């Protein structure tokens, strides 16, 4: 009936655009039926834990901001990785069958990209709301929109989405879920270790930091949190620990602290300490943030393109 007609008239079949929507539909059904929705409450729990652990000083002091933005970037990377690390490899044989029947790999990956974008967006909204609920101080100034939370949200989204696409890439070349889950921790460690600012890396290792989403995410978050305007407390805290140090029977540090407190100069000193330790990479500047966003978008595109290229060879999978 259809077959003969199809050959004689050379009828067109479903193109990439419609196929994208077919697979998008499948993904949303799986979101409901295959418990993929569980990543949403999981992101709330992780955000809650991080807010509890490091939320007190984020966007308050330089040290707290560095640690807190690193933790926020880690949440995003973790969420992104878990969203899609098993998405393709768990149905690899099905993808191979469907590719044989006329499915376009680009449509399949595009459907994943749209679906994951919505998932990442939902996770970012949840994360920000949890942070607010946990009384984490958020930046009060914005660089792009009228709402600082939206600016921060865009950065968090880009981190999550880039990590998500990296996991999708891993999932597209891993033959089994076990392989994908074995590679994931390794990639996670690379992301954390080479974030650039949080750990002191040797000079030769610095170029490698450009390949990590955490570096660009952390930099953008620090810039948006106006890191360079914040006080630095570590010098003060360390000196305070030595307040009882005696020199010829006297305690000069304790005396100095008393004098500073009496003159209400503590905050000024902390600010001064901060201004002496500013990092130009974290300037409250549109250019800095845009550069970070562009890097994250570039990596996202590269990861997705590589996933398409790799999956085009799925027919070579052995039985």
């Amino acid at each position, binding site marked *: 009936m*259809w077959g*003969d007609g*199809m050959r004689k008239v050379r009828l067109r*079949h*479903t193109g990439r655009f419609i196929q994208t929507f077919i697979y998008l539909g499948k993904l949303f*059904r799986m979101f409901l039926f295959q418990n993929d929705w569980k990543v949403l409450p999981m992101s709330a729990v992780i955000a809650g834990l991080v807010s509890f652990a490091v939320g007190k000083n984020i966007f308050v002091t330089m040290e707290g901001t560095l640690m807190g933005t690193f933790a926020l970037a880690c949440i995003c990377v973790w969420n992104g990785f878990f969203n899609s690390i098993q998405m393709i490899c768990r149905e690899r044989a099905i993808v191979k069958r469907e590719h044989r029947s006329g499915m376009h790999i680009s449509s399949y990956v595009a459907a994943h990209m749209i679906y994951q974008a919505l998932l990442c967006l939902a996770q970012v909204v949840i994360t920000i709301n949890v942070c607010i609920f946990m009384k984490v101080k958020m930046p009060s100034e914005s660089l792009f929109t009228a709402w600082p939370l939206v600016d921060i949200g865009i950065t968090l989204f880009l981190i999550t989405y880039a990590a998500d696409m990296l996991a999708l890439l891993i999932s597209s070349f891993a033959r089994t879920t076990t392989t994908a889950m074995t590679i994931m921790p390794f990639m996670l460690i690379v992301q954390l270790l080479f974030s650039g600012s949080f750990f002191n890396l040797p000079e030769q290792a610095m170029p490698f930091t450009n390949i990590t989403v955490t570096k660009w995410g952390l930099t953008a978050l620090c810039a948006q949190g106006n890191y360079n305007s914040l006080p630095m407390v570590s010098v003060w805290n360390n000196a305070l620990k030595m307040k009882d140090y005696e020199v010829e029977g006297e305690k000069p540090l304790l005396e100095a602290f008393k004098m500073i407190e009496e003159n209400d100069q503590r905050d000024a000193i902390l600010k001064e300490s901060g201004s002496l330790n500013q990092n130009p990479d974290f300037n409250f500047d549109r250019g800095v943030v845009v550069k970070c966003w562009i890097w994250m978008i570039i990596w996202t595109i590269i990861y997705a393109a590589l996933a398409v290229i790799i999956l085009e060879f799925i027919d070579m999978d052995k039985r």
Partner: protein
Amino acid sequence: MNINIDTMNTVLNCVRDGVSFILVSIGYMKIFEKCGVQKRWAFIPVLREYHLSLCADKEKEGRTYTILSCLIYVIGIAIALLNGHDMLLALLAIPFVGIVVAQVIFEIKIYLGLIDVFGRRKRWIWLFIFLEWFTVLYWGFSKKLVPTRKVQDLKDIEGAKEFGEDITVADEGLTVNIRNRSVIDFFKRKVLLKDIHMTIPKGHMVLLLGGSGAGKTTYLNAVTGYEQADAEIKLDSEDVYKDYTSMKYDIGFVPQQDLMRGNDTVLMTLSDAATLRLPSNISFQDRMKRVEEVLEQFGLASVKNNLVEKLSGGQRKRLSIAMEFISDPTLFILDEPDSGLDGVVARNLFEKLRQIADEGKIVVVITHTPDRVIDLFDDVIVLAKDQTRTGRLAWYGPVNEAYEFFGKDSMEDILLTINQKDEGGEGKADEFVEKYADRVKENVG
């Protein structure tokens, strides 16, 4: 003075390594001789490792072992050349350590295989690891140590004679002229299928029979155009290879496993399959009508809103078939559709396939339990591995004539006749391949 001592140490190390290499090579040369592998490979690094794995009957592991050995040589040379570049050396050292560890593991696997082939105790492994040159020399020269099986060199063996001619393309039906299907497998050319010619008329249900490795799946992939061979495949008068993009929708291939998403509903699975496989100018109403028709035809209407994972084995198999049948293909191919199904359910399924063939389709089926449903088939294709391990056509024709041709009264007995002796068969593949070629020549005139 210090320089002289360093130079002397280097020279001594080189001499030691050289002597060790020569001793080990001589030992392997003798082992290779015993195993039926050419002796010269014992002296060529990397190739030696691969041929050792052949002796050990561990070719699959041997490939990885060979690649690892090759990488070790390459990185070793790079490290020697990069003396002084600390950063680069550190970067190379990380993978080098990992590769060396992996190579040792694979070396142990190969040695254990060798010990098994020689029928010795596993404790020999310690000597192979810690005293390689001595052990290899002893194994090479000892007359008591002989392998239980030898490496078969297929290059010296001639396969069964060929029919060697393409048959005329039929106006209707499937015409298959596979001259050769080969692949490059680990730098070696391997012929998977050769000299297969036939015409299958429309309305026929054909059984594809063959032992393990006879090339059944390769044949199906070549016929469907999924993996193209040196061949001409015509469905009616259309060339499958030249028009693959449009022809693939007229060929349904149902894989052995039920490859469907378990967490989707039956209706949506079939509806999505229809959207993918049917022409895009068909209206939504017509598409859904076709989906409903196929659901009815395959007895899935009552479970259309169920999740696929909740279906029984038989229902799932029918859905998998329905996904391909939705586009009403002229050629319908099924790889073991009855695997995992009990006799009654399998019989019902094959009756359904018979109905599809009766609608004027060509249905080709692989099954490992053919005798319980053989009455439903018109023809049988028998593929057999000849002595060169190439898939050859031993029979294509009506089922009853096949019994007569092979002198057997069941398909399983036919399979036993053509299977190689090392697979528990009678090893008569070449005999029947030649007999069939002669018969076809006679018929063609």
